[in-house]
């Protein structure tokens, strides 16, 4: 168990490509922190710098108060789970898990106890004598986690550990990682490109893009108060709808006018806008798909249905407005009559609307949230 502190950490490759710019982050003891972002955003590079697998071009990494920039990976007190499992193919599951302990010259009876304990927690006791090639993807990933578990390390690093698994297994393993975290009660740094994983696992999420931190916050914070357009669109599935529109201030109240409609901004958001001193101006308006509702005919924003995705408990309606802007609307199937559902076919005309309290306002040029 340990805190991790990254101060002005930078990664510059030989070809002068900057993968990570001035990364600053304080990770508290026993915190589960998730680095999330699209491919090439620098999240894995940052994790690898913490692990010691990548040289640090600038700044410092501290683990438990000690600067570890020049320490070998084995001396940093970390354990790591890799995306491709990275099991030793010529060793049995038992030997894979026991390998690091043998290098530390731990007595065999202690090794046996630790390995069997870890195997029991992970449900792989029956496979201890098998070679990794005789295991399924999920079992292999459990072995990789077991190998990290027995090291009693201060920090647990996970680099996209679930991305090679199928969707069902991924959900199952995600739940298992939550349980594992409760059992181990140590500091976790977890890298993923999947925002669902980030939201469900992390105490705090670090959202990255092009080597820069975009926002650090709890899952609720980043979802409800995204710092900028990138975070707003990245967090949440389907992604947030963005509409270029006008913010109008009339008689002390604020309105938005997307696609010819006029919707009042609700009290709290209106007050926040007033407190920041905004007048009428052009904005990018963000509304999450689940906050858009179907309106009665002739009310709200007229749209044409392009695609109707049946997701089981809800429909994802891909619609386009009269000016061609595409929106996604999440409609719970439970509230729909049979004939309403049957009407939702390609080309169907419908009307949508949303409430003022669910809006997000972004600067069209900088992309920053106006209320931050």
């Amino acid at each position, binding site marked *: 168990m340990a805190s991790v502190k990254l101060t002005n950490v930078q990664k510059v490759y030989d070809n002068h490509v900057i993968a990570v710019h001035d990364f600053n982050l304080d990770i508290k003891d026993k915190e589960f922190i998730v680095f999330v972002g699209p491919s090439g955003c620098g999240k894995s590079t940052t994790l690898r710098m913490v692990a010691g697998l990548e040289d640090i071009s600038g700044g410092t990494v501290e683990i438990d108060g000690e600067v570890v920039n020049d320490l070998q990976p*084995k001396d940093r007190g970390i354990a790591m789970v*890799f995306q491709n499992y990275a099991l030793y193919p*010529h060793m049995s599951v038992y030997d894979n898990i026991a390998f690091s302990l043998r290098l530390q010259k731990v007595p065999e009876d202690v090794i046996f106890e630790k390995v069997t304990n870890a195997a029991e927690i992970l449900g792989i006791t029956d496979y201890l004598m098998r070679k990794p090639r005789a295991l399924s993807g999920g079992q292999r990933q459990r072995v990789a986690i077991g190998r990290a578990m027995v090291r009693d390390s201060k920090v647990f690093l996970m680099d996209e550990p679930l991305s090679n698994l199928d969707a069902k297994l991924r959900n199952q393993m995600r739940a298992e990682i939550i349980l594992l975290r409760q059992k181990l009660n140590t500091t976790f740094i977890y890298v993923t490109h999947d925002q669902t994983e980030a939201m469900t696992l992390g105490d705090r999420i670090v959202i990255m893009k092009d080597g820069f931190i975009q926002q650090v916050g709890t899952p609720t914070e980043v979802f409800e108060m995204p710092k900028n357009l990138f975070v707003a669109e990245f967090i949440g599935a389907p992604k947030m709808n963005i509409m270029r529109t006008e913010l109008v201030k009339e008689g002390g109240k604020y309105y938005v006018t997307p696609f010819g409609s006029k919707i009042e901004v609700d009290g709290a958001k209106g007050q926040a806008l007033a407190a920041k001193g905004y007048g009428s101006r052009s904005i990018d308006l963000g509304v999450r798909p689940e906050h858009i509702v179907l309106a009665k005919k002739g009310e709200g924003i007229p749209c044409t249905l392009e695609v109707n995705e049946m997701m089981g408990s809800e429909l994802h309606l891909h619609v386009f407005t009269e000016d061609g802007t595409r929106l996604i609307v999440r409609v719970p199937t439970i509230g729909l009559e049979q004939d309403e559902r049957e009407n939702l076919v390609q080309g169907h005309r419908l009307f949508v609307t949303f409430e003022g309290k669910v809006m997000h306002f972004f600067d069209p040029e900088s992309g920053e949230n106006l209320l931050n």
Partner: protein
Amino acid sequence: MTKQDSLAAERRRKTIMSVVLAAICIIYVLPVLSVVINSFKVNTFVKTDTFALPTGEMWAGFSNFIKGMTFGNYPFWKSVAFSALITVASTALILLFTSMAAWYIARVNSFSCKLIYYLCVFSMVVPFQMVMFTLSKTADSLHLNTPWTIPIVYLGFGAGLSIFMFVGFVKSIPLEIEEAASIDGCGPVRTYFSVVFPMLKPTMISVGILEIMWIWNDYLLPYLVLDINEYRTIPIHIQYLKGSYGTVDLGATMALILLSIIPVIIFYLICQKHIIKGVAAGAVKG
């Protein structure tokens, strides 16, 4: 063309191909077959009835083998021992050092590594005859002219092909495995011997077989480098099966050739599965 016509054409094509391939196969096997036949034949019939089966008065039984092994004053078992020593030691050296070098070349992406790699590849296309005289001089001056030191010369000549094959295979091993080893507590040496070396097994076997076949059968290099009065390998021993006035006992020669190729054939038959696997692994994944 009807479906039946096209099927008939396909059958004809396959028959022609089978005949051609069978003919090529016979051409390849014929020299080996002639060695087998003539090793059991009385010497005088080897030249006159080369392809006849050793029956009747031509049948020599195992006398050619006994004659070959007891001919002259250099014991045959000594040649076998030197051949085995040189082959085993050279192959072991080649496998150990070239696999290490290949691992380094594949993992360290520097200019010098690329240069070494291309030099190794280039060395494969330089014919031995081009360097053999300077080599024998160098080997003499460096005292590499004994069966105990000639493996170093073989290491130099065998490095090209084996580094080429090992680099291809190492590149197919995920780097993450070695990174996991370094987090688990391995330094480079430990990583190599505990993690990389065992994973190289398929390529080790195929490179090992190729090197063993080459070194066991090699004639020119030991002939040029070794003091042949003192140290003879099997191919050199066979070359010295000459009687008075330079007459050669072909029956005995054929018998010793047969004896010398039997171990290699047995070895190849046991390991041929691994040869194909190893070569394919290096070539396809690399």
